């Protein structure tokens, strides 16, 4: 009796799934030709906010593309966004990728999946299916696997660290007249900070003449930051690298710095990642604690992007655009450009065209300062680093000079 029931349950479940997918897919046939692209991002679970930000950016790009006449090379075909929830585990993310590929066999490409472990799992699927995936995940591992269909638009963690530190030291020297001698690191042990800190610990700091005097790693979420900041208070480094990855941990650490009389510029703080420039962090800790805090990101609202930002703010009600939205926006435009060049809604051809892209202007190039061109391993060539600083309650780009919308202010002790 059991095998019968089990089988019927299985078949029923599968039949239901098939039916649902048929129902959802059916209207597509009736409409004029569409080209499908996907955003695979966590829309539920602890990272839901980040997925939502990506969704907002991607939707804006799609609307703009379609308003301007869709994909011209395909007779004005509209681009259609397939939103896929990657959930809260790598298993769910991978299932999501497998599902979207099964249900949308004509998918030409996508972006995702925010968390680098999710991206790693998702790209295992898309790689085998030959569907190009764009990602802003920092982890070096993503493009170290020899994959052909993954494109990392952000500089990897390691690249960011190597590029950013000399710039920051220079800024410090210019402002204070002397070079920082000591540095401290507080970081969590997720993939992004780990790949950021690795080259620095392995001789990077030494080369810059810096001595590492505080080196603390924690597993998120943090319960209390006292023990961490106590060490900083003792060692008083000249600059401090703060590398947590979530707003709750940011809040605990920043407030503890303030409480221990180390905040508000007494020790220059350099952070990493988009979360530290998010409106929600501002809401959680207030402008006073953030003032002067600098952070390194792959992408931010820079000079030239004013129009995009204005449209985004108007559309979403968000106070400004962050990296997650901007990259998703740009990714859609990259796919659009590749589609125009490929002239066919075929994922492999699109991928080939992405590999050949060299965009210096247009919305895609605007979204990714430094232009869109990929190295053979899939990393964006010359992916610029942007340094942003909190100034009077806003996170503004201060470096590189050609993109900056404000002058950096180095705290003077």
């Amino acid at each position, binding site marked *: 009796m059991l095998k019968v029931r089990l089988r019927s349950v299985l078949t029923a479940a599968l039949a239901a799934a098939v039916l649902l997918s048929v129902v959802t897919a059916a209207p597509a046939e009736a409409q004029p030709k569409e080209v499908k692209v996907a955003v695979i991002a966590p829309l*539920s*679970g*602890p990272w*839901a*906010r980040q997925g*939502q930000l990506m969704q907002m950016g991607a939707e804006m790009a799609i609307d703009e593309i379609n308003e301007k006449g869709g994909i011209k090379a395909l007779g004005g075909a509209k681009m259609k966004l397939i939103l896929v929830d990657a959930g*809260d585990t790598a298993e769910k993310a991978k299932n999501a990728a497998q599902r979207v590929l099964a249900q949308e066999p004509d998918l030409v490409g996508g972006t995702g999946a925010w968390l680098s472990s999710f991206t790693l799992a998702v790209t295992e699927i898309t790689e085998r299916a030959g569907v190009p995936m764009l990602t802003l995940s920092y982890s070096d591992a993503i493009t170290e696997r020899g994959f052909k269909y993954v494109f990392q638009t952000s500089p990897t963690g390691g690249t960011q660290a190597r590029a950013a530190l000399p710039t920051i030291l220079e800024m410090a020297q210019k402002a204070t007249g002397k070079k920082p001698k000591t540095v401290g690191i507080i970081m969590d*042990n997720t993939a992004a900070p780990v790949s950021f800190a690795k080259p620095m610990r392995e001789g990077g700091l030494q080369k810059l003449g810096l001595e590492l005097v505080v080196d*603390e*790693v*924690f*597993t998120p*979420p943090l*319960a*209390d930051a*006292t*023990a*961490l900041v*106590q060490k900083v208070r*003792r060692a008083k480094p000249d600059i401090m690298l703060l590398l947590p990855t*979530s*707003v*709750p941990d940011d*809040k*605990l650490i*920043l*407030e503890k710095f*303030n*409480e*221990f009389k180390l*905040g508000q510029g007494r020790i220059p703080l350099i952070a990493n990642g988009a979360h530290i420039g998010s409106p*929600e962090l501002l*809401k*959680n*800790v*207030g402008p006073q*604690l953030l003032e002067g805090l600098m952070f390194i990101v792959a992408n931010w609202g820079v000079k030239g992007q004013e129009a995009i930002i204005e449209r985004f703010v108007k559309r979403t009600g968000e106070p400004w655009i962050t990296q997650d939205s901007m990259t998703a926006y740009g990714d859609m435009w990259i796919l659009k450009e590749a589609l125009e060049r490929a002239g066919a809604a075929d994922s492999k051809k699109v991928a080939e065209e992405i590999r050949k892209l060299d965009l210096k202007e247009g919305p895609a190039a605007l979204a990714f300062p430094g232009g869109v061109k990929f190295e053979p391993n899939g990393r964006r060539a010359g992916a610029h680093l942007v340094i942003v600083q909190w100034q009077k309650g806003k996170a503004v780009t201060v470096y590189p000079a050609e993109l900056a919308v404000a002058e950096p202010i180095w705290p003077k002790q």
Partner: protein
Amino acid sequence: MGELGWFAIDFLQALITGLLVGGTYALMCVGLGMIFGVMRVVNFAQGDFLMLGMYAAYYVATALGVMAVLGPYVGPVMAGLLAGPAVFVVGWLLHRFLIGRVTGVAAVGAEAEGHYAQIILTLGIALVLQNGGLILFGSLPLSIPTPMSRESWEIWEFLVNQARTVSFGVAIVVALLLYAFLKRTPLGKSMRAAADNPEAALYMGIDVDRCHRTAFALGCAITAIAGGLIASTQSFQPYIGFDFVITMYAGVVLGGLGSILGAFWGGMTIGLVQQLSALMLPFQLQNTAIFVVFLLIIFFRPHGMFGRSAERT
């Protein structure tokens, strides 16, 4: 100052922090311990009641204007306390319509006294609360804005965080009030009686169902108050309960299942171990230290620190 002097200072600072952090842990453990003590239910949704408490406190503080009226110092504390009654209602309703169906009299004679059903049921409730929270409250991390969380009182070499100190004080007071309630008032005593022997309690004219419901709702409320207090030091999102439910269970088991006093000291122990372990171990192993200490204590006292060890055959 010598190496030893520095260590002493670090140690005392960690001790202070551990006590302060432990205070709120203790309170949330007391909430969970109360539910287990009276109803013998393994409630995996307890972390999500903590989350509800955080949101309740947040909205009481901001939308209901308690902060605006009472100011940024008293306001958050008041909001934290008011989270209690709000979540009490939720707990009451959940017990009335769901939990009560697989606990108490309903669980007598069921396999493993209904624990299997209870575990799954509370896991289901946890899922609904977390994801319902996402729909209702959104994914933005929030916190109650108060200057207390970023300021401290300086006592000689030591810095004592204001928000945590106030939370600690309130947590102790709430725990003491609960203790007095259970020891002194007729309702509290009848709840203990219902916990000890539901059938006999019924013969005394005690409404056991209502006792269970009160205990469940009260347990949820106590944990929610702990959440409400934490909401002014930490920011939260709908899935935060998960981070705390394990801590809570560790604390309650450590203290001895069924003992309110034990739950309190269990929570306190967790806070202390968490902070003190950072003096000797890499910070990343903070939580490993908690679980190792947990296992050690349980090995030497298989019924927790305050559990009754008399086992009858």
